[in-house]
């Protein structure tokens, strides 16, 4: 065994056994962050905090929630909301955080797209991030079904039915996923397990990977400037703090993150206390009824854009069934962001405002996503159906032309 000296303090005792000084340097005081980044880069810390809130409020909810179709609705709407001290608060914190977490994820994602943070060397950051988005979506959906209200039930019905689109084994697959011919008790209990155990633990694992992938290529910056981190760090350590392009994460950079976090938390608790309703659909205060479909069903706001891509194709085209086209488009919408680093053919990393055609592409995409989101909530009849159709087509076309768009920019600059 290695020889240990007598330690003079708790810190020293830990350092001998866990190498805490070195760890602290790597993780905090010598984890270098570029100076040239704005508040949009604080979204990671906001997400980590919101995820923490979800876990803690979820633990408190889980202690009274009953995953049984006969008891679930009352355990949420009566026991937790009325009897448990502060149960209402934990529910609203959980519900609002589940909604807000997607808002922040989207900002985080589109910041990355705008500044080209998914490119050359940062592909793994992007991919692990998209995997996080997917697992968060699964967690959001499986949690949405737990209160066993009407929206919960029919959301589960529609989403599990999507798997019926898989060739050959589709129908059997749907029965297998539900554990019954219908969305029933077996479905609720397995989604409960996914929501409170398997998905959270998977998310934690991917968060670890996501952080780790960031440490090798380092974080991007506002001007997408490439520089030598070791050189800049040396300057900083030598005392040339002004000249150096980097600052340590702790205690210098974190102060900015925490300031943004402070503002975010004020906004979040404002929603929790005064506007929690936006995350609670009124239809979900009716207990689930497998014999009546609500007049108009729609998912939570953060799924509306892909839902609208799914239902935008409402008529058969060239012998293909509307159903199949919709499903393929839906699969496309959910998978295409994953390969974004390879659709972007520009050899340079630059922010969107320095790539004129890409800049236009980016904002059309934003507008299209907003249109899809708005129309995803409206009934799919008359003109609404057509707006949905064209917006869905536009979404697909945007990604098909991306390689050309990015090549044009590179050519104009003389880089390709």
């Amino acid at each position, binding site marked *: 065994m290695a020889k240990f000296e007598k330690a003079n303090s708790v810190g020293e005792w830990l350092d001998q056994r866990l190498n805490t000084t070195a760890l602290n340097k790597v993780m905090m005081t010598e984890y270098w962050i570029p100076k040239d980044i704005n508040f949009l880069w604080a979204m990671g810390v906001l997400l980590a905090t919101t995820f923490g809130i979800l876990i803690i409020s979820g633990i408190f909810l889980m202690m009274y929630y009953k995953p049984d179709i006969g008891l679930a609705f009352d355990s949420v709407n009566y026991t937790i909301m009325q009897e448990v001290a502060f149960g209402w608060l934990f529910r609203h914190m959980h519900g609002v955080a589940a909604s807000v977490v997607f808002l922040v994820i989207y900002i985080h994602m589109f910041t990355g797209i705008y500044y080209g943070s998914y490119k050359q060397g940062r592909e793994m950051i992007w991919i692990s991030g998209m995997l996080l988005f997917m697992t968060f979506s699964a967690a959001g959906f499986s949690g949405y079904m737990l209160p066993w209200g009407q929206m919960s039930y029919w959301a589960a019905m529609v989403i599990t039915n999507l798997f019926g689109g898989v060739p050959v084994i589709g129908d059997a697959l749907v029965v297998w996923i539900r554990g019954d*011919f219908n969305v029933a008790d077996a479905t609720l209990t*397995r989604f409960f397990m996914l929501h409170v155990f398997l998905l959270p633990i998977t998310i934690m694992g991917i968060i670890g990977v996501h952080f780790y992938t960031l440490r090798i290529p380092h974080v991007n910056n506002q001007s997408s400037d490439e520089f030598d981190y070791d050189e800049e760090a040396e300057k900083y350590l030598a005392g040339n703090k002004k000249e150096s392009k980097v600052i340590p994460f702790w205690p210098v950079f974190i102060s900015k993150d925490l300031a943004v976090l402070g503002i975010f938390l004020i906004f979040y608790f404002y929603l929790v206390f005064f506007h929690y309703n936006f995350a609670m659909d009124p239809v979900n205060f009716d207990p689930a009824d497998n014999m009546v479909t609500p007049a108009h069903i729609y998912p939570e706001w953060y799924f509306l854009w892909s839902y609208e891509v799914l*239902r935008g194709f*409402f008529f058969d085209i060239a012998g293909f069934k509307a159903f199949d086209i919709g499903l393929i488009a839906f699969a496309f919408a959910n998978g295409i962001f994953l390969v974004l680093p390879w659709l972007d053919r520009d050899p340079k990393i630059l922010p969107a405002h320095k790539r004129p055609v890409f800049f236009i592409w980016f904002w059309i995409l934003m507008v299209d996503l907003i249109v899809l989101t708005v129309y995803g909530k409206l*009934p799919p009849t008359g003109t609404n159906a057509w707006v949905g159709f064209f917006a869905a087509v536009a979404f697909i076309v945007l990604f098909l032309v991306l390689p050309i768009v990015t090549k044009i920019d590179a050519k104009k600059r003389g880089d390709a």
Partner: protein
Amino acid sequence: MSNETNRRDFLGYSFAAVAAVGGAASLVGMKQAWDPLPSVLAGGFTKVELGELKPGKPVTVTWRGKPIFLLKKTAEMGENTRDLIIGSDRFTVAIGLCTHLGCIPAWKKDTWKCACHGGEFNPSGQQVFGPPPRPLDLPPFAVNGTAITLGEEGPEYKKIAAAMMA
């Protein structure tokens, strides 16, 4: 290659073989754990009296947790290969879940309209508008007199099912 290396290789391969068999076996077990339970599979025969239906007025009954549409057709509703003919009456028997994504369409005047994505089905259960890819599904049934038992596969069911496949 020395003897030592061969012995280690052998140990490695035998471990891999045992692990592969065990892993495959547990995957089968895990798959089956998510299958419907025997009690779910066994439950679910529902008997319905069709003689009491009023022409043009569909009723909905529950079978295996799913809605079943039963409609005695009027003359204007036309004939269809999937009609169940008992005596001089024609009936539509269908699983009342939209074949698009499984919402329950509602009867409006003379069509089943699905509110979810706008799908529509005529009184014979055929899709006439919107994304549903096929007619409403046919539940298995057996006919005894003017009653049917849902969940059993009688000769009438087999005939209609075959006609629908064609």
